[in-house]
């Protein structure tokens, strides 16, 4: 194949940008949705109501045991039967990622909640706070702070995983790069470009996480 020809990078930029926007949107929506649903799932898993805990546990274990590509494919094929009408690839991707990542955020939040010393619960109860008040004012804020780095690390993983939407033909950044690579028959150059972009973004994010960790860590 000989020498590389990086001139293909220039015309690819608009598509890369569009793909990146989709990737970011998907990441953000799935992250916020995933954290909210994940937290609820975590509460369900820790709740004393056994059936509820079981169901949530089964959901989480199932999601954690299947490759994401297959989950994406399944949702894409199955959602039309639930909703009665087909949804676009992008909507399907957003729903899938939220549902899938919720399982992972659930595990993180669960260990976050468990990392709060039992004495804190006792102290809150002893002050007369109710279950829900204790959860909202005392436990969750500490759990989130303790787990913030892990939550963000998971989000970086999520950001990388969005590349798997190729399975249902949604156009994320990697896909855009891929198509340009094929059009100009410069696939290798485009792979190198996407590797660079992913690395830059993920690396800056992980640096940011480290900074944040110092900032918000609870002084003990």
């Amino acid at each position, binding site marked *: *194949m000989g020498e590389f020809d990086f001139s293909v990078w220039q015309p690819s930029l608009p598509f890369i940008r569009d793909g990146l926007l989709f990737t970011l949107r998907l990441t953000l929506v799935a992250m916020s949705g995933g954290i909210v649903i994940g937290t609820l799932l975590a509460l369900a898993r820790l709740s004393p109501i056994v059936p509820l805990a079981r169901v949530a546990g089964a959901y989480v274990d*199932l999601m954690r*045991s299947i*490759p994401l590509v*297959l989950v994406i494919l*399944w949702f894409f094929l199955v959602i039309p039967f639930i909703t009665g009408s087909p949804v676009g690839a992008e909507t399907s991707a957003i729903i899938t990622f939220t549902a899938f990542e919720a399982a992972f955020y659930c595990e993180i939040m669960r260990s976050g909640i468990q990392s709060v010393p039992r004495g804190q619960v006792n102290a809150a109860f002893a002050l007369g706070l109710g279950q829900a008040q204790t959860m909202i004012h005392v436990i969750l804020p500490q759990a989130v702070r303790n787990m913030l780095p892990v939550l963000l690390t998971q989000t970086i993983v999520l950001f990388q995983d969005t590349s798997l939407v190729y399975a249902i033909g949604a156009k994320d950044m990697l896909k855009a790069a891929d198509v340009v690579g094929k059009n100009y028959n410069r696939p290798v150059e485009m*792979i190198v470009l996407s*590797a660079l972009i*992913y*690395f830059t973004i993920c690396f800056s994010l992980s640096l940011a996480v480290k900074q944040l960790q110092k900032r918000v860590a609870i002084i003990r």
Partner: protein
Amino acid sequence: MNYHWNWGIFLEPVKSGDETYLDWLITGLGWTLAVSLTAWLIALCIGIAVGALRTTPSRLLVMLGNAWVELFRNIPLLVQMFLWFFVAPEFLPREWSLWVKQDMPAKEFITAALCLGFFTSSRVAEQVRAGVGSLPRGQHDAALALGLTLGQAYRHVILPQALRIVIPPLTSEFMNVFKNSSVAFAIGVLELTFQARQMQEDSEQGIETYLAVTLLYFICAFTANRVMALIEARTRVPGLIGKPA
């Protein structure tokens, strides 16, 4: 649904030969296991070493360890597979490159196992570092105070405890290895995802195919989970149940 179900499909012979579709899936499972287990072994060895390096007092070693981790965890696995398979050999001298590309035995398998192994090692290293960091500093001091060298302290005191602590997150990683091995089809390893594509193209019973493959992946991940649980139970230290070390 407008779909023609055929659950007997797995026992039917494939179009081009005397194997059945089930044989295909079994071959696929075999390669999936081979890639995953090899990668996991690589990931454990490198991950533990790199993770431990990152907790040493030496600035240089810490930086090397950090570089390794950041490099391998910040690029999607799929992209890394491509880089290793298509880009890396181009930097070798011409004859080597040709040998790697045409004659190296099991080249897809080796590339996939190494790539997945390195990728996972960066995550294992991160967990191991966290595990070592969560040990009380006094353990390190106590080991040194007895006259153990730093190496002996890691070998006998620090790592045995840190590894026990990180078994739960390592369980997740072990499960992930099986799931992530599905990306190896991209460079032509004949593993489960590859066989699934081939089977659904050949048989046109896509849904049955993917259900079966999903189930197989689930079983792999679930087995991994149980194996780790067994290890966790086996290595549990009496008197420490429930207490953080």
